């Protein structure tokens, strides 16, 4: 076990935190932009719902299941060419964000679908009876009714993302998780590994608390 060099650790940790933040921010934004609509689409195309469409529902489901059934490391390698195409690199946090984003889209879409399916059918029916368009029903009824669930799902997605991002380090994505693997596993620097693990725990805990707090606030206002 090597000595714990605090100044090296701090600079490495700072860099790793920045990388984790970059990967998470990009992936979460993409999850919101694409995963949220995909979740709505999966839900709305169900039988008996506003946009009932077996083909679209089936294809959406296939995509989500395909991505979710792959171990993340495999997905990461599979989409390397795509990452190269999109970002111009195969290494680095931005490049790793491509595979992370795809994983997050699928993950969040499924959670969005579940949250939406918990909204009472009667409320949707009442909205339909008023002559509201599908868009209005989504905007004025479905979305606000499902919001606490959507926030909780987003929290779960963010936390899973932190876990995935450690593996992104394998292809040079960097990040806090990779720091733990690098020092703790490859270099037997248990001290550094422990510090990074503590940092990870703090990050995850903070996300969870923030997510729970937001969801509870929305819940309480009804």
């Amino acid at each position, binding site marked *: 076990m090597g000595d714990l060099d605090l100044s090296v650790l701090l600079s490495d940790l700072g860099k790793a935190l920045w990388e984790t933040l970059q990967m998470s921010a990009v992936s979460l934004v993409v999850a919101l932009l694409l995963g949220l609509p995909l979740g709505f689409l999966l839900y709305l195309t169900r039988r008996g719902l506003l946009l009932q469409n077996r083909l679209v529902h089936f294809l959406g489901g296939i995509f989500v299941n395909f991505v979710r059934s792959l171990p993340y490391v495999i997905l990461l390698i599979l989409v390397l060419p795509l990452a190269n195409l999109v970002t111009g690199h195969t290494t680095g946090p931005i490049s790793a964000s491509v595979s992370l984003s795809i994983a997050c889209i699928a993950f969040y879409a499924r959670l969005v679908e579940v949250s939406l399916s918990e909204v*009472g059918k*009667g*409320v949707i*029916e*009442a*909205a*339909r*009876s*008023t*002559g*509201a*368009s599908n868009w*209005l029903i989504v905007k*004025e*009824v479905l979305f*606000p*009714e499902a*919001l606490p669930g959507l926030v909780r799902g987003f929290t779960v997605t963010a936390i899973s993302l932190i876990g995935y991002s450690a593996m992104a380090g394998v292809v040079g994505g960097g990040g806090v998780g990779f720091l733990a693997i690098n020092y703790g596993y490859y270099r037997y620097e248990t001290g550094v590994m422990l510090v990074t693990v503590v940092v990870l725990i703090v990050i995850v805990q903070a996300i969870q608390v923030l997510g729970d707090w937001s969801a509870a606030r*929305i819940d309480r*206002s*009804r």
Partner: protein
Amino acid sequence: MLRLKDIHVEFPGKTGAVYAVRAASLEVADGEVYGIVGTSGAGKSTLLRTVNLLQRPTSGEVWLDDVELTRLPERELRAVRRRIGMVFQHFNLAASRTVHDNIALPLLAAGVPEDKIRQRVPELLALVGLSDKEFVKPGKLSGGQKQRVGIARALATEPSVLLCDEPTSALDPESTESILQLLSEVNRRLGVTILVISHELAVIKSICHRVAVMTDGEIVEENGVFELFAHPVHDFTKELVNRSLELELPERVRQSAPGTLLRLVYRGESAEAPILSQAVRELGVHINILHGHIEYIDGRPLGVLIVGLEGSTAALTRTVVFLRERVARLEVLRHG
């Protein structure tokens, strides 16, 4: 005028299609309160939902005035739905939105501008007597208040027809009474045509002008409310009506009451004429009222009385003949 013509609704089941509604036709005149009564699972709710096509019928036509709704494309159907309000058993309010937002939804759907909505929502709340609850979430309201919000939402776009799906079945007796009063008022003051379904005959009795009886997916009988109660024809209707009108004499009274026991059913005029006192005066019998009940349906009395007669055999015979001519139905429960 709202017309349903030969509506069938079938759902795919494990052992072939299951009919929820079979060959149902009905006409509701403008300004009328029309009830559909039946046990749960009779298909009432499904039939009601075909009116605004929340449920597409498998076959049959739905007409509102001279427009066949069953032929309209989705977009035009949405416009028509603004002329048909709907009230639900479980209110179906969005819990995350305020009372204001819930009532504003149909107005947004109709493209009413924001400032008009701000003006219209308080008017609607005043109409249903909830003016102080505009910015409250539905979770803070009682069942009766939630239904008032539901009614305000249904009336927001000034529909000509209001569909009510078991509007009081989730409410306590007091709220039931006040919601029924409100619906009656909406009908009378705004001239809104109401189509209401209920498994409770009391609801139908208190607000409807005409009623259809539904069992097993079929409409088996249709009549004015009073006529339906006074002359039920179909067995199912008779059972339904009897359950609400029939009186049972306690066994002890039945044993100990002297003389002849009669069950009299009165309706309309005869319920108001003093025939019993006339019989006592002119026919030399004593009449003892043992049990009775008179109710007013659509403003007309319908009553059931169980009376004991005492007197000479001749007087008794004359009295039975006299009464039989003057009441709707006379049944001798026991000869004295």
